[in-house]
């Protein structure tokens, strides 16, 4: 298989483009998933079958909700902030931001799982309760995916540092370019999680 510099560059560009396209398409897929949940919430709310949509305006433990939300937003903001610093060449800042983000993500994940244990209503006791449990499941998936993606980015950066020397993540090598494209898509996904997280916070904990 021939590997002229032009061909290598072409395939690298295709690869970097794929990370960009793939990241956006993944957000698209996720949007439809989230939208299905949001649809269910509003549908059951407007149906109010048996007057059991949200009796007594039952609400899930708001302390948990806000903490999880805060941590998720924190991780997202840190990822975004970290990427800004990375683009300016401040790799150390990026590491700190992202590891903190990973930590926040992991704690948020555990809190979210634990919330199911301390729920103040039975899962099937109302439409709100059902959609809330569905939301928790999706949130667990989101937090897992987001934190995983964040963690693998930092891990990759560390390994690149060990194997290819300091500044490998900033270099114009194929590994560097691929890495930065991946980080960009990851940050975008966290932005999306922030947006959808805000929407669900309003739906389940605020309104």
């Amino acid at each position, binding site marked *: 298989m021939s590997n002229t510099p032009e061909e290598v560059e072409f395939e690298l560009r295709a690869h970097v483009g794929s990370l960009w396209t793939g990241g956006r398409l993944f957000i698209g897929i996720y949007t439809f998933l989230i939208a299905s949940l949001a649809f269910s919430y509003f549908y059951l709310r407007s149906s109010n079958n048996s007057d059991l949509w949200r009796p007594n305006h039952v609400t899930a433990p708001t302390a948990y909700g806000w903490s999880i939300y805060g941590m998720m937003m924190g991780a997202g903001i840190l990822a975004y902030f970290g990427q800004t610093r990375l683009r300016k060449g401040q790799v150390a800042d990026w590491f700190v931001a992202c590891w903190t983000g990973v930590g926040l993500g992991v704690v948020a994940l555990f809190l979210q799982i634990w919330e199911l244990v301390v729920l103040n209503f039975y899962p099937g006791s109302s439409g709100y309760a*059902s959609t809330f449990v569905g939301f928790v499941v999706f949130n667990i998936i989101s937090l897992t995916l987001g934190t995983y993606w964040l963690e693998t980015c930092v891990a990759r950066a560390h390994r690149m540092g060990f194997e290819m020397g300091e500044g490998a993540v900033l270099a114009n090598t194929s590994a560097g370019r691929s890495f930065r494209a991946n980080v960009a898509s990851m940050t975008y996904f966290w932005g999306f999680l922030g947006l959808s997280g805000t929407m669900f916070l309003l739906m389940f904990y605020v309104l």
Partner: protein
Amino acid sequence: MTISAERPTEVATHSASPYSSKKPRGWFSQHLGTALLAAIIGYLIGHWLGNHIAWNYPTTAATGQNYVANFLALLFGVVGWLLGIGALNYPLAKLVGRSGEHEPEEADGISKYFRYSTNHKTVGIQYIVGVLLFLFTAGLLAMAIRTELLNPTTHVFSPDTYIKIVSEHGTIMMMMATSIIVGPLGNYFVPLMIGSRRMAFPRIEAFSFWTFTAGYMVIFSALPYGGFPTGWTGYAPLQTQAGPGMISYLFGFAVIGLGMMTAGFNVAVTIVNYRAPGMTWSRVPVFVWGILATAALMTLATPALFAAGTFGLLDLVNQTAFYVNEHGGSSYLWQNLFWFFGHPEVYIMAIPGFGVVGELLPVFCRKPLFGYKVSAAGMIGVALLSFFVWQHHIFQSGINPDMRPLFMLTTEMISIPTGFIFLVGLGTMYKSKMRFEIPMLFSLALYFNFLIGGLTGVFISDVPVNVTLHGSFFVLSHFHYTIMGGLVFAFMAGLYYWLPKMTGKMMNKKIGLWHFWTMFIFFNLTFFPMFIIGMLGQPRRVFTYAKSLQGLNDFSSISAYILGFSFIIFAWNLMYSMYIKPEMAPANPWDSLGLEWQTATPVPRHNFDRIPVITNDPYHYAEPGATPLVDRGQSSSSSGYQA
């Protein structure tokens, strides 16, 4: 045109990580056997865990079933399967920062087909086996259904068994049909047709295949679990009432959904990014347009199914009430979520068929494709519109009546882009020079069948007429005409056309003719009477019917047996042509201008020695002075064997 380069500071480095591993070989590497073993272990662990958690739940005592155990068993089984085949190696390696730059090497010989492979061509062939597995299983179930319907009063199966068979047949066929062309032919040929050496995400592609097979096992597990009584449509509250087989259905859909999303994701990103230089959008082959349109649906519509299935599982396992009216849920919620997926789903099954025949027709008409842009626009238009028609499946269910004219309009409108396919087909046939090879015969059969299927769809989309036809055998015949008469025939066309490229061997023509004519004639004889049966009042999924309809039912059943036999002829042809008496294929047996035919046979590991530079689209038949497809100065040589 050359590929300009901003020269990188170095040629690609590959980190010397052990993940970029040696060739897998031997019994103690990862392969189908380890996958099966790990799946069984996972299943047992999950079952144990479920029992440990839920043995004292009131629902366990009350129903005698432990849904938590059933679900966790299936979940851990699937995870075990994926772990065992090696699909999760890289995701786990990434946690410690290992790079994915270096693809694992492929195993030698036939064992590569039993392993996790990042070679899209291997995955394509694996998908053929997977798809045929689904097809034959569900086909046997269909034979059982027709046997039951031979007589309205003498029953072969108990009503419980019968409904289990009907449900399983429908579900397995629908799951198979989602991937029957995208899986084998899409994965194998899209990179070749766009001049790429690889897929964008080969690991995700392989993951999609092994998830697909896991889905088969999950949905098949419904049978030993006692089946599920809801048909493939899974309506609540019957779903909530059902036994443990329902979990297999719901979770099976979630797993297959994951396979669909990942397969569609990979192929869509590949088409967008990996087109060879010079391959502008107006030079992309029609088959690739079809796969792109399908991939858009696979990625964006399937999440609704995933959500619907998750909510159903939550209802059964966690006692939520998504679909239970009496507890604040709604049975309409399932209907809406399911059909929001369900309608794009059937276009996932129609569009690849259009892509295949659009690709094949110019080759066998020796004429350019008529209306290339119209063809692409038609497929994209169908895909887009398919999101806006779903309530035509539930016109009489008690939905807001004001919605009905709206959905009638959108459904009628979708027949406009669907009609483009016929415009393109007929235009290509006009004043052509047709060669009636077997792929051409199957393609022409698609036009014949889909015409009937599509037109009957217009009848059903009309709300007043829908009042009579909904839920009857008329609808059943409509969708068998479109899905089986369209997609499955297109699959056969594609197989007969492309197997010489995939394997270097021709499919036997004589047996192929027997296969085609038996399948075509008896397909029509099986399903055409069903329009009449439906109009005369026989609903779907019933084991008894008016005595006066027995003649038609018997005619249909006997024809169905022979139709089933035609698949045996097909299997025989496959065996004969591939193993028993293979006949070597010439490099380009159909004289096609397509780029995939310009690779060597067998197709080298990285497809093209040099990335081709595209200078034209592949439809310039009957145009002696046309610009060639590929810039000869740059491309690989096309004949002979290459390492």
